């Protein structure tokens, strides 16, 4: 097709004007910060768009994968905590980990006793009993060890390795978690996967929030090392622009690879599985394995994006992960931009993120006006928490956008293009 993609050009031109307006009105430092965050969301969005757009998998646990990847990246890159490593605590912690390994081995052994001729009913009972004992025993060694770490050194600290390694490790961790989730839920209805991913994301958050010995919990960790010189060294605009160039490079690489994958036989197979599972299975495709493949791949991208996002904010606060910002906002970006269309996803991410960041002052202004007019005209006193309520309005708008897009523009602004082979 040699015709110019008019729709794409028009939409991206409009987006460029919008970005320029933000830079002009809010200043370069604000604008670059927004663009860096948008670029991190873009990596996450690309990960989600291959899960949903390429394969039709419904992942509502994006927040959990982001949080896990962010933590792993932090653990790998944060400077070494000498107070921890110079004491006998690593040994104790190792002892506790060994206890967990022994417990796991005992449970596994108990679960295999049917090979020795034990009836299955007794095997299950034995396994459960061994599991309970092993669990309580490992817990009784683990808890004092972690408590001692919290008392003595505060927390474990990091490994002090380079940032890129941290991001890779973060992506790998998110992918591994995705693999475990996928193994369990991919053979079942899509709804089950949604429920299970929602659950795992809350559990990851609960763990990161409460495991003080590992993550400092609510005390938060900062500053997280950057891959580029920090604002203290270069000033806000330059350092953020440097960060942006790193993430933009990542996006270009990922984008090109994904485009290639989309047009390849592999991408065609994925769409075939998505559109008609039965006929794809009849053609000899291993549906669950292929889905697992793309689910893990998508989660790796989500993890890398999440690690980049949290590294940029430079503070790791487990309570700051909320489903609204880190799951549903990304869903809106993907389905509004056009699931299955990588360009559309990038467009959706930047557009929605600009609207999202601008909506905060806009909502506050709007509600401030309402409060003033209400006071002036009807003598109505606005409640004290009116400002926080104004921000809750955005939850409503996100929900409304999801339902409206699904109903009236299910393909998004830049719909998926059917590939034609001639």
């Amino acid at each position, binding site marked *: 097709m040699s015709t110019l993609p008019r729709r794409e050009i028009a939409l991206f031109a409009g987006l460029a004007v919008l970005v320029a307006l933000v830079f002009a009105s809010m200043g370069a430092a604000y604008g670059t910060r927004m663009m860096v965050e948008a670029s991190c969301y873009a990596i996450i969005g690309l990960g989600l768009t291959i899960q949903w757009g390429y394969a039709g998998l419904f992942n509502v646990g994006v927040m959990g994968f982001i949080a896990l990847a962010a933590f792993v990246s932090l653990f790998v890159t944060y400077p070494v905590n000498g107070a921890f490593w110079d004491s006998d605590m690593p040994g104790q912690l190792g002892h506790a980990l060994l206890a967990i390994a022994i417990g796991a081995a005992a449970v596994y052994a108990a679960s295999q006793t049917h090979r020795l001729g034990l009836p299955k009913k007794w095997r299950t009972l034995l396994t459960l009993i061994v599991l309970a004992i092993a669990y309580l025993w490992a817990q009784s060694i683990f808890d004092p060890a972690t408590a001692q770490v919290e008392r003595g050194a505060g927390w474990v600290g990091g490994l002090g390795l380079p940032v890129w390694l941290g991001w890779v490790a973060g992506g790998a961790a998110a992918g591994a978690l995705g693999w475990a989730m996928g193994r*369990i839920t991919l053979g079942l209805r899509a709804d089950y996967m*949604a429920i299970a991913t929602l659950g795992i994301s809350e559990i990851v958050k609960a763990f990161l929030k409460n495991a003080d010995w590992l993550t400092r919990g609510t005390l938060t960790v900062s500053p997280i090392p950057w891959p580029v010189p920090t604002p203290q060294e270069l000033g806000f605009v330059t350092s953020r622009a440097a960060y942006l160039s790193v993430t933009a490079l990542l996006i270009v690489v990922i984008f090109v690879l994904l485009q290639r994958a989309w047009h390849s036989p592999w991408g065609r197979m994925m769409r075939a599985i998505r559109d008609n599972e039965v006929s794809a299975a009849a053609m000899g495709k291993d549906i669950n394995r292929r889905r697992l493949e793309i689910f893990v791949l998508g989660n790796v991208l989500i993890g890398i994006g999440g690690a980049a996002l949290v590294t940029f904010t430079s503070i790791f606060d487990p309570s700051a992960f909320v489903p609204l910002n880190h799951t549903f906002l990304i869903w809106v970006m993907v389905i509004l931009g056009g699931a299955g269309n990588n360009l559309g996803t990038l467009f959706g991410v930047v557009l929605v993120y600009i609207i999202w960041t601008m909506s905060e002052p806009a909502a506050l202004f709007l509600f401030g006006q309402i409060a003033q007019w209400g006071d002036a005209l009807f003598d109505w006193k606005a409640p004290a928490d009116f400002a*926080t309520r104004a921000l*809750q309005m955005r939850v409503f708008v996100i929900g409304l956008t999801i339902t409206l897009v*699904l109903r009236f523009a299910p393909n998004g602004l830049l719909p998926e293009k059917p590939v034609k082979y001639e």
Partner: protein
Amino acid sequence: MEAGFLASLPAQELVFFINRGLLAGLIIGSVYALGAVGVTLIFGILRFAHFAHGDMMTIGAFVALVCVALFTGGESIAGLPAAFVLMPIAMAVTALAAIGIDRGFYAPLRRAKVRPVVIVMSSIGVMLMMQGLVRLFAGTGTWQLEAGGAKTIYRLPLLGRDVILTQPQALLIGFTALAAIALHFFLTRSRMGKAMRAVSDNPDLARVSGISIDSVVRATWAIAGALAAAAGTLLALDVTLKPDLAFNIILPIFAAAIVGGIGQPYGAMAGGMLVGFTETFAVFNWSVLLRPLQPWLPDFIDIPNRIAFVPTEYKIVVPFFILIAVLIWRPTGIFKGRVVK
């Protein structure tokens, strides 16, 4: 634990176990059961996981709150909490709202014959909208459904100690039992109930045999909405009313519905109780029960102060693991639900 515990009789520990273990499990299990019945009916008849169910509970509880504020000063009526007496209004309003939401958001998607998972996503959109509305109008703070007052407490003497049950808790357990019986008769005796079961079993066959799918769908939403409102109101009466009540409760409810077998209302009731009890027992401090055994045990076994399977802050892990275990070993649930794939 205070030292007094050690010296006292085992009766005290036993009653403590009944209060903090059995009754607490029964109470939270009742809430889960009421929610899970709605989820499982919707899942069975409309074939999608309704994520907005938890928020329907919150909405129902807030409607009850508004009713209490409008019609009474928050005093109790005939010895019962005003919110409980006015709960039928909240149930009716929520049932209507549920039907309206279906008309506005889910029915057009069903007509467009989208994949079921798109309707699931739309229900997440609805969930966010409800959350936003509740927080916009009610703020993010906590509300009390019972204005100014201590709850009536029932004490049942047992072994020289008191088994303690507050009035809202007793109402919750009683209401759940009544609802279970009523639902049973509705599903097995009434025309509409039989039609619902038929649609749940085989929608095409039900349609060609002359059952109006639309009215079945309406009845499903009405029942689900009414039960959700009741569960929300009763839970809010027992503890407090918070706008984020819903988000923490949706996972246990789904776990209960799946454990019970999708599309199986009795299974959902049993699943709700199972999840409620497991959750409570997992965080229960078992050393209280084991302590009295200490004199008979050899010296080298020392019962620690705290033997709980799961620390309280990880409570959410429990329904999740039940869910995972069921999905791995028996995806149809204990009561053999149908919708697996």
